[in-house]
Protein backbone atom coordinates (compact mmCIF):
# COMPACT_ATOMS: atom_id res chain seq x y z
CA UNK A 1 0.00 0.00 0.00
CA UNK A 2 2.88 2.28 0.91
CA UNK A 3 4.47 1.47 -2.45
CA UNK A 4 1.29 2.34 -4.27
CA UNK A 5 1.06 5.69 -2.49
CA UNK A 6 4.62 6.43 -3.48
CA UNK A 7 3.92 5.41 -7.07
CA UNK A 8 0.87 7.64 -7.18
CA UNK A 9 2.81 10.56 -5.73
CA UNK A 10 5.54 10.01 -8.32
CA UNK A 11 2.97 9.99 -11.12
CA UNK A 12 1.51 13.26 -9.87
CA UNK A 13 5.01 14.76 -9.70
CA UNK A 14 5.77 13.63 -13.24
CA UNK A 15 2.50 15.07 -14.46
CA UNK A 16 3.26 18.35 -12.69
CA UNK A 17 6.69 18.60 -14.26
CA UNK A 18 5.33 17.76 -17.70
CA UNK A 19 2.79 20.55 -17.36
CA UNK A 20 5.46 22.93 -16.14
CA UNK A 21 7.57 22.10 -19.17
CA UNK A 22 4.77 22.94 -21.57
CA UNK A 23 3.68 26.54 -21.11
CA UNK A 24 1.23 27.77 -23.74
CA UNK A 25 2.86 29.74 -26.54
CA UNK A 26 1.85 31.21 -29.84
CA UNK A 27 1.45 28.92 -32.88
CA UNK A 28 4.78 27.93 -34.39
CA UNK A 29 5.85 28.62 -37.95
CA UNK A 30 5.87 24.91 -38.76
CA UNK A 31 2.13 24.84 -38.23
CA UNK A 32 1.60 27.40 -40.97
CA UNK A 33 1.45 26.68 -44.64
CA UNK A 34 4.40 27.62 -46.88
CA UNK A 35 8.16 27.56 -46.64
CA UNK A 36 9.82 27.21 -43.26
CA UNK A 37 13.24 28.81 -42.74
CA UNK A 38 15.42 26.90 -40.32
CA UNK A 39 18.67 27.72 -38.54
CA UNK A 40 21.26 25.08 -39.51
CA UNK A 41 22.93 25.43 -36.11
CA UNK A 42 19.85 25.59 -33.90
CA UNK A 43 17.28 23.49 -35.79
CA UNK A 44 14.54 24.42 -33.33
CA UNK A 45 14.78 28.06 -34.43
CA UNK A 46 12.39 28.54 -37.35
CA UNK A 47 10.64 31.33 -39.13
CA UNK A 48 8.15 31.84 -41.92
CA UNK A 49 10.52 34.43 -43.37
CA UNK A 50 14.19 34.42 -44.33
CA UNK A 51 16.57 36.19 -41.96
CA UNK A 52 19.06 35.58 -39.19
CA UNK A 53 18.79 33.19 -36.27
CA UNK A 54 17.97 35.25 -33.19
CA UNK A 55 20.07 32.90 -31.10
CA UNK A 56 23.30 32.43 -33.01
CA UNK A 57 23.15 34.89 -35.90
CA UNK A 58 23.41 32.35 -38.71
CA UNK A 59 21.35 32.84 -41.86
CA UNK A 60 18.15 30.83 -41.88
CA UNK A 61 17.81 28.48 -44.84
CA UNK A 62 14.69 27.20 -46.54
CA UNK A 63 14.35 23.59 -45.47
CA UNK A 64 17.43 21.53 -44.75
CA UNK A 65 18.96 18.37 -46.16
CA UNK A 66 18.32 15.22 -44.16
CA UNK A 67 20.69 15.13 -41.20
CA UNK A 68 23.41 12.66 -42.15
CA UNK A 69 26.54 11.99 -40.11
CA UNK A 70 29.80 12.69 -41.92
CA UNK A 71 33.02 10.84 -41.14
CA UNK A 72 35.72 12.68 -39.25
CA UNK A 73 39.16 11.16 -39.18
CA UNK A 74 41.70 12.57 -36.71
CA UNK A 75 45.38 11.84 -37.08
CA UNK A 76 47.90 12.94 -34.45
CA UNK A 77 51.63 13.08 -35.19
CA UNK A 78 54.32 12.38 -34.18
CA UNK A 79 53.52 8.90 -32.97
CA UNK A 80 53.55 8.29 -30.11
CA UNK A 81 52.35 11.69 -29.00
CA UNK A 82 54.15 12.88 -25.88
CA UNK A 83 52.90 15.14 -23.11
CA UNK A 84 54.43 18.59 -23.11
CA UNK A 85 55.60 18.34 -26.73
CA UNK A 86 53.97 19.83 -29.83
CA UNK A 87 51.63 17.53 -31.71
CA UNK A 88 50.03 18.06 -35.10
CA UNK A 89 46.32 17.38 -35.23
CA UNK A 90 44.94 16.72 -38.71
CA UNK A 91 41.20 16.48 -39.25
CA UNK A 92 40.04 14.89 -42.51
CA UNK A 93 36.36 14.82 -43.37
CA UNK A 94 34.64 12.37 -45.71
CA UNK A 95 31.10 12.08 -46.96
CA UNK A 96 29.14 9.06 -45.70
CA UNK A 97 28.09 7.82 -49.14
CA UNK A 98 31.30 7.30 -51.10
CA UNK A 99 33.94 8.33 -48.58
CA UNK A 100 34.97 11.24 -50.79
CA UNK A 101 36.99 13.89 -49.04
CA UNK A 102 34.97 17.01 -48.26
CA UNK A 103 36.79 20.29 -48.86
CA UNK A 104 33.97 22.85 -48.95
CA UNK A 105 32.53 24.09 -45.69
CA UNK A 106 30.16 26.78 -44.47
CA UNK A 107 31.34 29.33 -41.95
CA UNK A 108 29.75 28.78 -38.54
CA UNK A 109 30.23 31.48 -35.94
CA UNK A 110 32.93 33.15 -38.03
CA UNK A 111 35.00 29.96 -38.37
CA UNK A 112 35.07 26.88 -40.59
CA UNK A 113 35.96 24.51 -37.78
CA UNK A 114 35.51 24.75 -34.03
CA UNK A 115 37.48 22.38 -31.84
CA UNK A 116 36.95 21.67 -28.15
CA UNK A 117 39.51 19.68 -26.17
CA UNK A 118 38.72 18.25 -22.72
CA UNK A 119 41.09 16.10 -20.68
CA UNK A 120 40.14 12.97 -18.78
CA UNK A 121 40.32 14.75 -15.42
CA UNK A 122 38.33 17.70 -16.83
CA UNK A 123 41.08 20.11 -15.86
CA UNK A 124 42.04 20.98 -19.44
CA UNK A 125 39.59 22.88 -21.63
CA UNK A 126 40.35 24.43 -25.00
CA UNK A 127 38.11 26.05 -27.62
CA UNK A 128 40.04 26.90 -30.74
CA UNK A 129 39.96 26.71 -34.51
CA UNK A 130 42.04 24.44 -36.75
CA UNK A 131 42.73 26.03 -40.12
CA UNK A 132 41.90 24.64 -43.54
CA UNK A 133 45.00 23.64 -45.48
CA UNK A 134 45.51 23.39 -49.23
CA UNK A 135 45.16 19.62 -48.84
CA UNK A 136 41.55 20.05 -47.72
CA UNK A 137 42.33 18.97 -44.16
CA UNK A 138 42.09 21.06 -41.02
CA UNK A 139 45.32 21.44 -39.05
CA UNK A 140 46.14 22.48 -35.51
CA UNK A 141 49.29 22.31 -33.43
CA UNK A 142 48.63 21.47 -29.82
CA UNK A 143 50.68 20.56 -26.76
CA UNK A 144 48.86 17.96 -24.70
CA UNK A 145 49.86 19.03 -21.19
CA UNK A 146 49.70 15.60 -19.56
CA UNK A 147 49.13 11.93 -20.28
CA UNK A 148 45.71 10.31 -20.36
CA UNK A 149 42.56 10.37 -22.47
CA UNK A 150 41.40 13.50 -24.25
CA UNK A 151 38.03 13.97 -25.88
CA UNK A 152 38.13 16.24 -28.91
CA UNK A 153 34.91 17.64 -30.30
CA UNK A 154 34.83 18.82 -33.91
CA UNK A 155 32.10 21.25 -34.91
CA UNK A 156 31.86 21.95 -38.66
CA UNK A 157 29.34 22.38 -41.46
CA UNK A 158 30.00 20.63 -44.79
CA UNK A 159 28.62 22.52 -47.76
CA UNK A 160 25.18 21.19 -48.71
CA UNK A 161 24.81 19.14 -45.54
CA UNK A 162 23.83 19.85 -41.94
CA UNK A 163 26.13 21.02 -39.13
CA UNK A 164 28.19 18.23 -37.62
CA UNK A 165 29.26 17.75 -34.01
CA UNK A 166 31.56 14.73 -33.77
CA UNK A 167 33.67 13.54 -30.85
CA UNK A 168 37.03 11.79 -31.20
CA UNK A 169 39.41 10.37 -28.60
CA UNK A 170 43.17 10.70 -28.26
CA UNK A 171 45.22 8.79 -25.71
CA UNK A 172 48.53 10.32 -24.66
CA UNK A 173 50.66 7.45 -23.31
CA UNK A 174 51.62 7.59 -19.67
CA UNK A 175 50.01 7.33 -16.27
CA UNK A 176 46.27 8.00 -16.30
CA UNK A 177 45.11 10.89 -14.11
CA UNK A 178 43.19 10.11 -10.94
CA UNK A 179 39.47 9.48 -11.44
CA UNK A 180 37.55 12.73 -11.29
CA UNK A 181 34.97 13.40 -8.61
CA UNK A 182 33.51 16.81 -8.06
CA UNK A 183 30.72 18.42 -6.11
CA UNK A 184 28.37 21.28 -6.85
CA UNK A 185 30.20 24.52 -7.54
CA UNK A 186 28.00 27.49 -8.41
CA UNK A 187 30.30 29.96 -6.68
CA UNK A 188 30.97 33.25 -8.54
CA UNK A 189 34.06 33.08 -10.74
CA UNK A 190 36.48 35.92 -11.21
CA UNK A 191 37.78 35.65 -14.74
CA UNK A 192 39.91 37.85 -17.02
CA UNK A 193 37.91 41.07 -16.70
CA UNK A 194 34.57 40.10 -15.18
CA UNK A 195 32.85 38.06 -12.49
CA UNK A 196 30.43 35.36 -13.61
CA UNK A 197 27.61 34.09 -11.39
CA UNK A 198 25.35 31.11 -12.04
CA UNK A 199 21.77 30.41 -11.00
CA UNK A 200 19.81 27.45 -12.34
CA UNK A 201 16.09 26.81 -12.56
CA UNK A 202 15.32 24.33 -11.15
CA UNK A 203 17.99 24.82 -8.48
CA UNK A 204 18.63 21.08 -8.65
CA UNK A 205 18.86 20.08 -12.33
CA UNK A 206 17.00 16.88 -13.26
CA UNK A 207 18.28 14.59 -16.00
CA UNK A 208 16.13 14.56 -19.12
CA UNK A 209 14.39 17.82 -18.28
CA UNK A 210 15.19 21.34 -19.29
CA UNK A 211 17.47 23.34 -16.98
CA UNK A 212 17.52 27.09 -17.41
CA UNK A 213 21.00 28.37 -16.65
CA UNK A 214 21.25 32.09 -15.92
CA UNK A 215 24.76 33.53 -16.03
CA UNK A 216 25.07 37.03 -14.60
CA UNK A 217 28.19 38.99 -15.40
CA UNK A 218 29.67 41.95 -13.54
CA UNK A 219 30.42 44.61 -14.63
CA UNK A 220 27.31 44.46 -16.77
CA UNK A 221 28.56 46.82 -19.47
CA UNK A 222 31.01 46.21 -22.29
CA UNK A 223 29.77 42.75 -23.24
CA UNK A 224 30.44 41.91 -26.88
CA UNK A 225 29.59 39.06 -29.18
CA UNK A 226 32.30 36.42 -29.30
CA UNK A 227 32.39 34.46 -32.54
CA UNK A 228 29.00 35.87 -33.50
CA UNK A 229 27.21 34.83 -30.31
CA UNK A 230 26.70 36.38 -26.87
CA UNK A 231 28.23 33.32 -25.32
CA UNK A 232 29.39 29.75 -25.83
CA UNK A 233 28.99 26.78 -23.53
CA UNK A 234 30.48 23.33 -23.38
CA UNK A 235 29.22 20.86 -20.78
CA UNK A 236 31.02 17.56 -20.26
CA UNK A 237 29.83 14.75 -18.04
CA UNK A 238 32.26 13.48 -15.41
CA UNK A 239 32.73 10.27 -17.43
CA UNK A 240 33.32 12.25 -20.66
CA UNK A 241 30.48 10.45 -22.44
CA UNK A 242 28.24 13.51 -22.86
CA UNK A 243 29.64 16.58 -24.58
CA UNK A 244 27.06 19.33 -25.02
CA UNK A 245 27.71 22.49 -27.01
CA UNK A 246 25.18 25.30 -26.57
CA UNK A 247 24.64 28.96 -27.37
CA UNK A 248 22.48 31.34 -25.34
CA UNK A 249 18.73 30.89 -25.53
CA UNK A 250 18.14 34.48 -24.46
CA UNK A 251 20.77 37.23 -24.53
CA UNK A 252 20.81 40.82 -25.68
CA UNK A 253 24.16 42.17 -24.59
CA UNK A 254 22.90 42.83 -21.08
CA UNK A 255 24.35 41.33 -17.90
CA UNK A 256 22.20 38.19 -17.90
CA UNK A 257 22.74 35.40 -20.42
CA UNK A 258 20.36 32.44 -20.40
CA UNK A 259 21.22 28.99 -21.71
CA UNK A 260 18.68 26.16 -21.81
CA UNK A 261 20.24 22.75 -21.38
CA UNK A 262 18.86 19.22 -21.11
CA UNK A 263 21.42 17.21 -19.18
CA UNK A 264 21.00 13.68 -20.50
CA UNK A 265 21.95 11.64 -17.46
CA UNK A 266 22.15 11.78 -13.66
CA UNK A 267 25.86 12.60 -13.56
CA UNK A 268 27.94 15.58 -12.57
CA UNK A 269 28.70 17.95 -15.42
CA UNK A 270 31.54 20.41 -15.72
CA UNK A 271 30.35 23.49 -17.58
CA UNK A 272 32.60 26.01 -19.30
CA UNK A 273 31.12 29.28 -20.52
CA UNK A 274 32.84 31.93 -22.59
CA UNK A 275 31.85 35.59 -22.82
CA UNK A 276 33.71 38.50 -24.40
CA UNK A 277 33.99 41.89 -22.69
CA UNK A 278 35.93 44.83 -24.10
CA UNK A 279 37.85 42.62 -26.49
CA UNK A 280 38.83 40.05 -23.86
CA UNK A 281 37.48 36.49 -23.88
CA UNK A 282 36.51 35.25 -20.42
CA UNK A 283 36.18 31.56 -19.58
CA UNK A 284 34.40 30.48 -16.39
CA UNK A 285 33.92 26.98 -15.07
CA UNK A 286 31.10 25.58 -12.92
CA UNK A 287 30.26 22.09 -11.65
CA UNK A 288 26.65 20.99 -11.88
CA UNK A 289 25.52 17.71 -10.29
CA UNK A 290 22.42 16.41 -12.03
CA UNK A 291 19.99 14.06 -10.33
CA UNK A 292 17.38 11.65 -11.67
CA UNK A 293 13.71 12.44 -11.16
CA UNK A 294 12.77 11.32 -7.66
CA UNK A 295 16.42 10.80 -6.63
Amino acid sequence: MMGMKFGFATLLLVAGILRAQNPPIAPLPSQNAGTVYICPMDPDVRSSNPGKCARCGMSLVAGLPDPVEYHLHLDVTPKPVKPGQPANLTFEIHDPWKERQVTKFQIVHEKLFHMFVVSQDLQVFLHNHPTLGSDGDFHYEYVFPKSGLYRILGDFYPDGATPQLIAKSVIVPGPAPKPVSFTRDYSPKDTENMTVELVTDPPQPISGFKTQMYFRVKPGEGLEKYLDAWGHMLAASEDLIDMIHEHPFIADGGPQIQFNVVFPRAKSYRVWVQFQRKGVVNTARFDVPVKALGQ
Partner: protein
Amino acid sequence: MKRSLFFTCVVMMTMCAAAQAHDVITTPVTWDREISRIFYSRCVACHRDGGAAFSLMEYKDAFPWRTAIKEEVLERRMPPWGAVKGFGDFRNDQALTPEQLELLTSWSQGGSPEGEDKDLPPKDKLNEMMQESAWFHDGPGDGPDAAERHHSAAVAVSGDVKLVKPLTLDGLLPKSVPAGSFQIIAEFPDGRVEPLLWLDDYKEQFAHPFLLRSPVELPAGTVISGIPPGATIFLLPEEKK
Protein backbone atom coordinates in the same frame (compact mmCIF):
# COMPACT_ATOMS: atom_id res chain seq x y z
CA MET B 1 -4.05 -6.64 -4.10
CA LYS B 2 -6.01 -7.07 -7.33
CA ARG B 3 -8.13 -4.10 -6.34
CA SER B 4 -5.02 -1.96 -5.74
CA LEU B 5 -3.62 -2.95 -9.09
CA PHE B 6 -6.90 -2.13 -10.81
CA PHE B 7 -7.01 1.24 -9.06
CA THR B 8 -3.43 2.02 -10.10
CA CYS B 9 -4.18 1.07 -13.71
CA VAL B 10 -7.28 3.26 -13.78
CA VAL B 11 -5.31 6.23 -12.38
CA MET B 12 -2.52 5.75 -14.90
CA MET B 13 -4.92 5.46 -17.85
CA THR B 14 -6.82 8.53 -16.72
CA MET B 15 -3.60 10.52 -16.36
CA CYS B 16 -2.28 9.39 -19.74
CA ALA B 17 -5.56 10.41 -21.38
CA ALA B 18 -5.47 13.75 -19.56
CA ALA B 19 -1.83 14.35 -20.54
CA GLN B 20 -2.63 13.60 -24.18
CA ALA B 21 -5.61 15.92 -24.15
CA HIS B 22 -3.63 18.76 -22.58
CA ASP B 23 -0.29 18.42 -24.36
CA VAL B 24 0.58 21.87 -25.60
CA ILE B 25 2.84 22.05 -28.63
CA THR B 26 5.98 23.99 -27.77
CA THR B 27 8.35 22.51 -30.34
CA PRO B 28 8.71 22.99 -34.08
CA VAL B 29 10.09 19.45 -34.39
CA THR B 30 7.51 17.07 -35.86
CA TRP B 31 7.11 13.38 -36.50
CA ASP B 32 6.49 13.96 -40.21
CA ARG B 33 9.62 16.04 -40.76
CA GLU B 34 12.42 15.03 -38.38
CA ILE B 35 11.41 12.19 -36.10
CA SER B 36 10.21 9.72 -38.75
CA ARG B 37 13.58 10.09 -40.51
CA ILE B 38 15.50 9.35 -37.31
CA PHE B 39 13.28 6.41 -36.44
CA TYR B 40 13.57 4.85 -39.89
CA SER B 41 17.35 5.17 -39.93
CA ARG B 42 17.97 4.06 -36.33
CA CYS B 43 14.97 2.31 -34.72
CA VAL B 44 12.59 0.70 -37.19
CA ALA B 45 14.99 -2.04 -38.29
CA CYS B 46 13.89 -3.74 -35.05
CA HIS B 47 10.78 -1.75 -34.08
CA ARG B 48 8.52 -2.77 -36.97
CA ASP B 49 5.68 -5.08 -37.80
CA GLY B 50 7.21 -8.52 -37.80
CA GLY B 51 10.42 -7.18 -36.28
CA ALA B 52 12.16 -7.97 -33.01
CA ALA B 53 10.28 -5.32 -31.00
CA PHE B 54 6.99 -3.41 -30.96
CA SER B 55 6.36 -1.19 -33.93
CA LEU B 56 7.41 2.45 -34.07
CA MET B 57 6.68 2.78 -37.77
CA GLU B 58 3.76 5.16 -37.49
CA TYR B 59 3.07 8.28 -35.48
CA LYS B 60 0.22 6.54 -33.68
CA ASP B 61 2.66 3.79 -32.63
CA ALA B 62 5.33 6.16 -31.35
CA PHE B 63 3.21 8.81 -29.59
CA PRO B 64 2.29 6.73 -26.51
CA TRP B 65 5.99 5.97 -26.02
CA ARG B 66 7.21 9.55 -26.35
CA THR B 67 8.38 9.98 -22.75
CA ALA B 68 9.98 6.54 -22.53
CA ILE B 69 11.72 7.15 -25.86
CA LYS B 70 13.34 10.33 -24.54
CA GLU B 71 14.56 8.57 -21.41
CA GLU B 72 15.88 5.57 -23.30
CA VAL B 73 17.82 7.57 -25.87
CA LEU B 74 19.29 10.06 -23.38
CA GLU B 75 20.47 7.17 -21.19
CA ARG B 76 21.88 5.56 -24.38
CA ARG B 77 19.92 2.38 -23.70
CA MET B 78 18.36 2.72 -27.15
CA PRO B 79 19.46 2.07 -29.79
CA PRO B 80 21.30 -0.72 -27.90
CA TRP B 81 24.67 0.11 -29.45
CA GLY B 82 26.39 -0.25 -26.06
CA ALA B 83 29.48 1.81 -26.85
CA VAL B 84 30.58 5.41 -26.51
CA LYS B 85 30.65 7.37 -29.74
CA GLY B 86 34.03 8.64 -30.86
CA PHE B 87 36.21 6.01 -29.21
CA GLY B 88 37.04 3.87 -32.22
CA ASP B 89 35.31 4.55 -35.53
CA PHE B 90 32.78 1.99 -36.74
CA ARG B 91 31.14 1.52 -40.12
CA ASN B 92 28.04 -0.07 -38.57
CA ASP B 93 27.64 2.64 -35.89
CA GLN B 94 24.00 2.80 -34.79
CA ALA B 95 24.37 5.30 -31.94
CA LEU B 96 22.42 8.54 -32.21
CA THR B 97 24.25 11.75 -33.01
CA PRO B 98 24.05 14.75 -30.65
CA GLU B 99 21.76 16.46 -33.17
CA GLN B 100 19.40 13.47 -33.25
CA LEU B 101 19.32 13.35 -29.45
CA GLU B 102 18.45 17.04 -29.33
CA LEU B 103 15.64 16.65 -31.86
CA LEU B 104 14.14 13.63 -30.07
CA THR B 105 14.29 15.42 -26.72
CA SER B 106 12.70 18.54 -28.13
CA TRP B 107 9.92 16.52 -29.77
CA SER B 108 9.22 14.49 -26.64
CA GLN B 109 9.15 17.48 -24.31
CA GLY B 110 7.34 19.79 -26.68
CA GLY B 111 4.08 17.90 -27.07
CA SER B 112 5.27 15.41 -29.73
CA PRO B 113 3.38 16.90 -32.69
CA GLU B 114 2.65 14.87 -35.80
CA GLY B 115 3.20 17.71 -38.27
CA GLU B 116 2.03 17.87 -41.86
CA ASP B 117 1.70 15.07 -44.40
CA LYS B 118 3.72 17.04 -46.97
CA ASP B 119 6.82 16.75 -44.76
CA LEU B 120 6.64 12.96 -44.42
CA PRO B 121 9.09 11.21 -46.77
CA PRO B 122 7.47 8.88 -49.31
CA LYS B 123 7.03 5.29 -48.14
CA ASP B 124 9.68 4.10 -50.59
CA LYS B 125 12.24 6.47 -49.14
CA LEU B 126 11.41 5.46 -45.57
CA ASN B 127 11.74 1.79 -46.48
CA GLU B 128 15.06 2.53 -48.15
CA MET B 129 16.29 4.25 -44.97
CA MET B 130 15.19 1.28 -42.89
CA GLN B 131 16.91 -1.23 -45.15
CA GLU B 132 20.12 0.79 -45.16
CA SER B 133 20.35 0.41 -41.37
CA ALA B 134 23.23 -1.86 -40.43
CA TRP B 135 20.87 -3.80 -38.19
CA PHE B 136 18.11 -4.47 -40.71
CA HIS B 137 19.56 -7.79 -41.84
CA ASP B 138 22.04 -8.56 -39.09
CA GLY B 139 21.38 -7.98 -35.40
CA PRO B 140 21.41 -6.69 -32.80
CA GLY B 141 20.61 -9.81 -30.87
CA ASP B 142 22.20 -11.89 -33.58
CA GLY B 143 24.12 -13.50 -30.75
CA PRO B 144 27.79 -13.85 -29.99
CA ASP B 145 27.92 -16.82 -32.34
CA ALA B 146 27.73 -14.32 -35.18
CA ALA B 147 31.47 -13.88 -34.82
CA GLU B 148 32.14 -17.51 -35.50
CA ARG B 149 29.66 -17.55 -38.35
CA HIS B 150 30.86 -14.43 -40.11
CA HIS B 151 34.53 -14.42 -39.16
CA SER B 152 35.97 -17.89 -39.27
CA ALA B 153 39.30 -16.65 -37.92
CA ALA B 154 37.83 -14.75 -34.91
CA VAL B 155 40.21 -14.77 -31.95
CA ALA B 156 38.73 -14.91 -28.44
CA VAL B 157 40.72 -12.94 -25.87
CA SER B 158 40.27 -12.40 -22.12
CA GLY B 159 42.25 -10.00 -19.95
CA ASP B 160 45.34 -8.26 -21.31
CA VAL B 161 46.92 -10.12 -24.23
CA LYS B 162 50.08 -9.59 -26.26
CA LEU B 163 49.81 -10.55 -29.92
CA VAL B 164 52.46 -13.06 -30.98
CA LYS B 165 51.86 -12.42 -34.65
CA PRO B 166 50.52 -9.46 -36.63
CA LEU B 167 46.80 -9.03 -37.05
CA THR B 168 44.76 -6.80 -39.33
CA LEU B 169 41.82 -5.95 -37.11
CA ASP B 170 38.45 -5.50 -38.81
CA GLY B 171 36.32 -5.30 -35.69
CA LEU B 172 35.50 -6.56 -32.22
CA LEU B 173 32.64 -8.59 -30.86
CA PRO B 174 32.00 -8.85 -27.13
CA LYS B 175 31.02 -12.37 -26.14
CA SER B 176 30.60 -12.19 -22.38
CA VAL B 177 30.80 -8.79 -20.79
CA PRO B 178 30.06 -7.67 -17.24
CA ALA B 179 27.89 -4.63 -16.62
CA GLY B 180 29.66 -1.31 -16.52
CA SER B 181 31.91 0.85 -18.60
CA PHE B 182 35.39 -0.04 -19.82
CA GLN B 183 37.80 1.05 -22.52
CA ILE B 184 39.62 -1.43 -24.74
CA ILE B 185 42.84 -0.02 -26.16
CA ALA B 186 45.76 -1.18 -28.29
CA GLU B 187 49.25 -0.47 -26.93
CA PHE B 188 51.66 -0.65 -29.86
CA PRO B 189 55.30 -1.77 -29.59
CA ASP B 190 56.41 1.76 -30.64
CA GLY B 191 54.69 3.24 -27.57
CA ARG B 192 51.56 4.72 -29.10
CA VAL B 193 48.16 3.92 -27.68
CA GLU B 194 45.04 3.81 -29.84
CA PRO B 195 41.43 3.64 -28.65
CA LEU B 196 39.58 0.57 -29.96
CA LEU B 197 36.22 0.33 -28.20
CA TRP B 198 34.60 1.91 -25.13
CA LEU B 199 31.83 -0.39 -24.01
CA ASP B 200 29.21 1.23 -21.83
CA ASP B 201 26.17 -0.68 -20.60
CA TYR B 202 26.58 -3.25 -23.38
CA LYS B 203 23.87 -5.90 -23.23
CA GLU B 204 24.49 -9.44 -24.40
CA GLN B 205 20.87 -9.80 -25.45
CA PHE B 206 21.70 -7.24 -28.15
CA ALA B 207 25.04 -8.79 -29.03
CA HIS B 208 26.54 -7.40 -32.21
CA PRO B 209 29.95 -6.81 -33.73
CA PHE B 210 31.68 -3.43 -33.85
CA LEU B 211 33.11 -3.20 -37.36
CA LEU B 212 35.91 -0.69 -37.86
CA ARG B 213 35.57 1.87 -40.62
CA SER B 214 39.17 1.17 -41.61
CA PRO B 215 41.07 -1.97 -40.56
CA VAL B 216 43.80 -1.39 -37.98
CA GLU B 217 47.21 -3.02 -38.48
CA LEU B 218 48.31 -4.51 -35.17
CA PRO B 219 51.95 -5.64 -35.29
CA ALA B 220 53.27 -8.55 -33.26
CA GLY B 221 53.93 -7.40 -29.72
CA THR B 222 50.82 -5.18 -29.56
CA VAL B 223 49.06 -5.44 -26.22
CA ILE B 224 45.26 -5.40 -26.18
CA SER B 225 44.21 -4.18 -22.76
CA GLY B 226 41.14 -3.01 -20.91
CA ILE B 227 39.14 -6.21 -21.15
CA PRO B 228 37.89 -6.75 -17.58
CA PRO B 229 38.31 -10.06 -15.73
CA GLY B 230 35.72 -12.60 -16.77
CA ALA B 231 34.95 -10.92 -20.07
CA THR B 232 35.69 -12.37 -23.47
CA ILE B 233 36.03 -10.29 -26.61
CA PHE B 234 36.46 -11.63 -30.13
CA LEU B 235 39.03 -9.88 -32.27
CA LEU B 236 37.73 -10.06 -35.82
CA PRO B 237 40.55 -10.21 -38.39
CA GLU B 238 40.03 -8.73 -41.81
CA GLU B 239 38.61 -11.41 -44.07
CA LYS B 240 40.86 -12.25 -46.99
CA LYS B 241 39.01 -11.92 -50.28
